[in-house]
């Protein structure tokens, strides 16, 4: 944040509101900055917009390194029935995705070693189709296996700002029954 916070004008707010609202995808902060007058900071504008939509049916969320409008979480049970778009992952896919998120870049063999089970084509296809993972090149080891990593879509899918928002490793290793 800056020392002096200059509040955006209503005109600026409307413009950014329209920009973010128009998109189904996350709007990168730099795209917002590009439309702002000199001296106005994108994070201030986002803060004001967030406050304005707090408690409404649609909200401003900061996700995947940018900003997006999303429906309020508490409306989920009712909206789910109205907007049929089942894209929930299977437990196996969730586990595989977790391993990729944590160990990226990671090879298929490494994923299989951690899970102690082979990776099915179906699981790989599901993760690829939802654009949650992507190949990140090949590892310089014999056989040059493909290495996998998560995408910006992964962050957006789970409403995460950045990878460092994932729980810390120590917290995951603590065993409480």
């Amino acid at each position, binding site marked *: 944040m800056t020392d002096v916070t200059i509040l955006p004008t209503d005109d600026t707010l409307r413009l950014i509101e329209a920009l973010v609202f128009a998109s*189904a995808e996350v709007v990168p902060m730099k795209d917002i900055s590009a439309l702002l007058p000199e001296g106005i900071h994108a994070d201030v504008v986002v803060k004001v917009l967030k406050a304005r939509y707090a408690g409404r049916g649609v909200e401003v969320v900061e996700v995947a390194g940018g900003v997006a409008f*999303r429906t309020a*979480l508490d409306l989920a049970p009712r909206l789910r029935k109205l907007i049929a778009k089942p894209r929930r992952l299977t437990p196996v896919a969730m586990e595989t995705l977790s391993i990729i998120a944590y160990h990226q870049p990671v090879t298929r063999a490494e994923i299989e070693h951690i899970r102690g089970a082979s990776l099915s084509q179906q699981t790989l296809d599901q993760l690829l189709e939802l654009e949650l993972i992507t190949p990140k090149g090949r590892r310089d080891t014999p056989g040059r296996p493909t290495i996998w990593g998560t995408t910006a879509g992964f962050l957006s899918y*789970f409403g995460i700002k950045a990878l460092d928002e994932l729980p810390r490793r120590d917290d995951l290793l603590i065993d409480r029954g």
Partner: protein
Amino acid sequence: MEPALDTAHSAADTLILHLDGFEGPMDLLLNLARAQKVDLAKISILSLVDQYLAVIADARKYSLELTADWLLMAAWLTWLKSRLLLPAPSDELEDAEAVAAALTERLAELSAMRKLSAWLGRRPILGDDVFARGMPESHEEIDSSGVVIEPGVFIRAYLRAMRRGAKSTGYTPKPLNFWTLQAALHSMSQRAERQFSWTDLQDFLPESPFNETERRAAVASTFLAGLELAKSGAVQVRQQEAFGPILLRTTPDGSDPAP
């Protein structure tokens, strides 16, 4: 799948195990370890091995078909158990303990990933818990009115055209000595400015040395030049008999001669 396998293990609680409900040997091991209800780092590898082997033995009793990885793990755990129990040279025991530690670590890792998976599952999932704009509006406009002219491509195109052109006309080092229509027009227009009376077409031919082909071409272009000037009203053309000489003169009253 068919027969579920129930097995009571050594702990007080009865753990109902359905083998086909497990993802694989590691999954079963993790569940067995969790059932010990202690920190994963402190589990007893020996009792874990016993439990695993008991499950496998049961499965065989019920003649459940087990895939290779289940049996491989069983064989490996049997080996590990024997190394951990039997009096052995100290370095071999150390090896076995290291292997046991590695197994504990693998179980801890899998457990951590399960927790991350559960954490992710509690997130507001896009398209299921929260929804994005259903009808996004694109403010992008494709402007394809422009054109790319890369100098390199431009130059290569020119050279390609020139090469083809040179080939099709046949390259001759000596310039062609044709009396062109332009030249004929130019020369005749100049003379027309000074006026002339009936003059034979032949007199308008240039004096340069011509071969027969060139001479006939010159006659043709001079004749065309005459017709062109006649069309614009600058000259008049007359031929008194078929194949007779063609005569030209400037139009007497001088309607404005075309340039």
